[in-house]
């Protein structure tokens, strides 16, 4: 079976786009072939800085012949129908059609249409230009004389030539002929830009790869990566050093060369005074070089590894010395930044934060720092931090944004602040918090544990969330430009992993107060919808939360008009944010393998605004339901709920009053007497346990219900003839429902 070889040879393709482009090319061509009925055995795509290559193995020489019978009009139909049939079937006269008969329809014409399969080369010549013209580059351009006309070819950089051959192993393959915007396909490619620039004639993939190798081009990016890594480790080892591995850099560097040659350079040891992260970032970002460390001490060495694209005639001496010059200049800059930054104390930089706009509607970084500092101070006692330290750390947390170093390397934010804070003699927790307050940056990032860091990290994230909620810039669908989901997850992880009890609603509601001055009364109408939707939900019970009067008091104090409405609006936004937290928590717990129905069962209760407590409750509930008592109680609950549902519907009334114990005592069976007694005790006990956050205890209390509930259903007929007795038994069932609600809404539990 023949193979296809396609190469698109261009000017230098950005390293970051190469891998994806090769994959896209493979997918687009194979999909187009399969869509037309051409199956293949295998396909591989490759990229270098100057070429995308694709080989598809085991394609048929031509497509399958297609035979199709097409039913025509009845014999003797009007001429127009006959002509239409002939035209549609591609026949010139009725002699070419056969006549078939059918007992119902009589005799009618049938055309036999035979479509021979098209030559694969023809199909390729048709689909390839289309794929090239519409190739999904992240950014593309026009070029050259052709770009004078509208609709000229776009490519990532000028496309120089196209190689396309097709044929079996045993014969000379043929060139698949096509043209794209004046570039005609052929069987010629070119070698390394400097070491073998001449044209190379290629037959098929098997001779293409070795021909390129002879012309100093390694086609496979993974092989280039292996070569670089291997040589880098060897060179490091020879010097008694260790390569600081960097997968992202390796991938990029492999996309900058067709023939990797790794060389070692060095820099003045004096530069090692600069923090190692800075050295690494400078050398990596600007020079795309690897750094090395001493395996014994773990400290950076004054050496670096560069990957050149040339086997130089002087063995690389010139290249190394040139790179050393640049590294020297870069490190001199970094050293200069490092030293000058230390001359200004972090707190003296704060004024400059006034020039950095955080968000048009949320003010400057300076204002943000003020808010975070206040919030961190307030949070400190809750997380066990010293309020003065938390406030200090928060105040300094963003100061490094206006240092020279972070101006040059934004990715060093936080880290530089920590270095400078340490140098100016700040408390170690304050210095650490400056770096760690950005954490965690995602689901797998480390969560800080120092209470000062935790306070500032929470304040930073809560301020962000509250701010964007206050201006109604919430994430929608896949759009989350301010990474608010990440911030919420950060809060969740900080709270859960540090076992922090945080009544979120009071905490969230207060910061909303400060933004209220921007809220116009007209907005109230928009918010009203939100209010209504929240009042209808489980969060509705929070509407009477103590934070609401607090808010109102703040607004009254500020002598704002409509203080009551404003308080309500802001409070509702806080509730909305709380429900966002609940959603993120569900996602988080689900990822951790928790049952989503149990999460729903807990969140369906009123007043769940403490993430840690909610999670503890979910865990305890899960364990309880795994026990026999738990499973049986759930079954008993369901039976009770079902009977109630049916009977309440039948009677058109609810039985939600407390059972009349006199009736129970006077007329009840022994089993219902027992149930009534235990229900009363168990509910109280569960309630008390919940109040002291002893969820296991609450579950234990409920487990005492199991036996009497089972016995009740076993021996007692709920629908007694005596209506008073029946009603009272239904109330007893309702008490079971009520008792379970102390720990969760059992109706949400599945399975």
């Amino acid at each position, binding site marked *: 079976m023949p193979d296809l070889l396609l190469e698109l040879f261009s000017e230098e393709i950005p390293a*970051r786009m190469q891998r994806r482009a090769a994959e896209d090319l493979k997918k687009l061509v194979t999909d187009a072939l399969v869509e037309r009925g051409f199956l293949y055995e295998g396909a591989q795509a490759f990229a270098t800085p100057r070429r995308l290559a694709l080989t598809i193995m085991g394609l048929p020489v031509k497509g399958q012949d297609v035979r199709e019978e097409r039913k025509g009009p009845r014999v003797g139909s009007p001429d127009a129908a006959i002509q239409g049939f002939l035209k549609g079937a591609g026949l010139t006269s009725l002699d070419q059609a056969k006549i078939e008969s059918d007992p119902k329809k009589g005799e009618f014409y049938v055309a036999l249409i035979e479509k021979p399969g098209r030559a694969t080369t023809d199909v390729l010549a048709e689909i390839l230009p289309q794929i090239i013209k519409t190739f999904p580059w992240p950014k593309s*351009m026009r*070029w050259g004389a052709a770009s004078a006309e509208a609709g000229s070819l776009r490519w990532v950089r000028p496309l120089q030539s196209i190689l396309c051959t097709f044929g079996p192993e045993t014969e000379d393959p043929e060139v698949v002929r096509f043209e794209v915007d004046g570039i005609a396909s052929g069987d010629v490619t070119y070698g390394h830009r400097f070491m073998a620039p001449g044209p190379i004639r290629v037959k098929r993939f098997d001779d293409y790869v070795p021909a390129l190798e002879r012309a100093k081009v390694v086609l496979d990016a993974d092989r280039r990566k292996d070569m670089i890594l291997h040589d880098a480790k060897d060179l490091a080892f020879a010097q008694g050093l260790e390569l600081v591995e960097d997968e992202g850099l390796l991938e990029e560097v492999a996309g900058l060369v067709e023939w990797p040659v790794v060389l070692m350079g060095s820099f003045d040891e004096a530069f090692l005074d600069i923090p190692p992260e800075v050295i690494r970032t400078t050398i990596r970002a600007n*020079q795309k070089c690897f750094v090395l460390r001493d395996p014994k001490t773990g400290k950076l060495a004054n050496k670096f590894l560069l990957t050149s694209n040339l086997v130089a005639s002087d063995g690389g001496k010139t*290249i190394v010395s040139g790179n050393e010059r640049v590294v020297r200049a870069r490190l001199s800059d970094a050293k200069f930044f490092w030293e000058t930054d230390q001359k200004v104390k972090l707190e003296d930089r704060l004024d400059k934060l006034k*020039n950095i706009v955080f968000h048009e509607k949320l003010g400057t970084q300076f204002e943000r720092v003020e808010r975070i500092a206040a919030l961190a101070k307030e949070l400190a006692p809750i997380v066990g931090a010293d309020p003065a330290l938390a406030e200090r750390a928060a105040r300094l947390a963003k100061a490094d944004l206006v240092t020279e170093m972070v101006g040059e390397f934004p990715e060093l934010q936080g880290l530089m602040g920590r270095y400078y804070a340490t140098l100016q003699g700040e408390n170690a927790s304050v210095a650490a918090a400056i770096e760690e307050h950005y954490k965690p940056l995602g689901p797998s990032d480390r969560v800080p544990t120092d209470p000062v860091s935790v306070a500032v990290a929470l304040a930073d994230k809560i301020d962000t969330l509250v701010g964007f909620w206050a201006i109604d810039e919430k994430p929608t669908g896949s759009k989350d430009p301010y990474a608010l989901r990440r911030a919420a997850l950060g809060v969740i992880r900080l709270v859960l992993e540090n076992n922090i009890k945080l009544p979120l609603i009071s905490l969230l509601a207060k910061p909303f107060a400060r933004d209220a001055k921007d809220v116009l009364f007209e907005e109230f109408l928009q918010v009203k919808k939100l209010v209504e939707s929240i009042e209808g939900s489980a969060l509705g019970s929070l509407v009477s939360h103590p934070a609401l009067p607090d808010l109102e008091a703040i607004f009254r104090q500020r002598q704002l008009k409509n203080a009551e409405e404003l308080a309500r609006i802001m409070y509702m936004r806080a509730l909305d944010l709380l429900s966002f937290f609940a959603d993120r928590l569900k996602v988080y717990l689900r990822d951790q393998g928790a049952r989503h129905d149990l999460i729903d069962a807990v969140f369906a209760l009123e007043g769940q605004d403490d993430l840690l407590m909610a999670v503890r409750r979910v865990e305890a509930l899960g364990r309880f339901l795994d026990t026999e008592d738990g499973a049986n109680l759930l079954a008993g609950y369901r039976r009770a709920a079902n009977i109630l549902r049916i009977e309440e519907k039948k009677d058109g009334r609810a039985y939600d009053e407390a059972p009349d114990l006199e009736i129970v005592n006077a007329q009840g069976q022994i089993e219902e007497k027992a149930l009534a007694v235990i229900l009363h005790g168990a509910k109280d006990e569960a309630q008390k346990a919940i109040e002291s956050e002893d969820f296991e205890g609450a579950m234990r209390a409920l487990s005492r219900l199991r036996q009497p509930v089972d016995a009740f259903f076993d021996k007692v007929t709920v629908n007694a003839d005596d209506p008073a007795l029946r009603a009272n038994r239904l109330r007893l069932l309702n008490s079971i429902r009520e008792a379970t609600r102390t720990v969760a809404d059992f109706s949400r539990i599945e399975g």
Partner: protein
Amino acid sequence: MTSEPAHMNPARSFQGLILTLQRYWAEQGCVILQPYDMEVGAGTSHPATALRALGPKPWRAAYVQPSRRPKDGRYGENPNRLQHYYQFQVILKPNPPNLQDLYIKSLQAIGIDTSVHDIRFVEDDWENPTLGAWGLGWECWCDGMEVSQFTYFQQVAGIECAPVAGELTYGLERLAMYLQGVESIYDLNFNGLEGDQKVTYREVFLQAEQEYSRHNFEHSDTDMLFRLFRDAEAASQKYLAAGEAGERHLMVLPAYDQALKAGHLFNLLDARGVISVTERQSYILRIRELVKACGVAWLKTEGGGMAA
């Protein structure tokens, strides 16, 4: 080149480097222009690039352009940074298919041996917000050092380039430092001579760097600069309006000069730190509007492709 005297060698002489590049690009059919006689931040702003890049007419030019970046001044104390430096600018419209080869040959012409130097084209998408321009291309690296910018213009003055021009910008001082093997710009040999006759970059420009740094950061008259900015903006708009003649435009270049003036005044104000972050964007926008209007007007001139 062998007949050239030693002091004209681009590896020894700053001016030798300039002259070699001029000669090389003259051989490729470029008109060799002299610097534009106005303060600009980059060679791209020269009307020979910014305006000539627009419209259908072929155009090839090369020139040195002094570039003024008031904010980059370091009082002559930084060996790598200047508030005034030279760019060598080449524009070829449409870009020939072998522009990368031509560029590499220009490096060879100034003495960069490609069998020992590692030349690389590293992704760099170019954008100039005040010119309303963008293009795709690369930073050209020689042994890890950026020595040129290589750009295929896609848009200038907010107008699609048709055809596309290729633009090359050589950072002359940096290139010369590498060729001459010196660590400070001020140590560059300017005229290639030795002993008493040697003139260094220090002798030519150090005083200017010191004086302009004082001016740019401490003493420039900001009231005057704000006023001149408004005047230049108004004048540009006025000249554009006056030049409107139906299908034609008769006064683009003077209007464009005023836009350039506004651009430089903005850079001076920015260096003095008197433009806040929020204002900054609006100033850039105002200049871009002027340049855009000039671009539209340019297309209504002979240079922009209208029949004579």
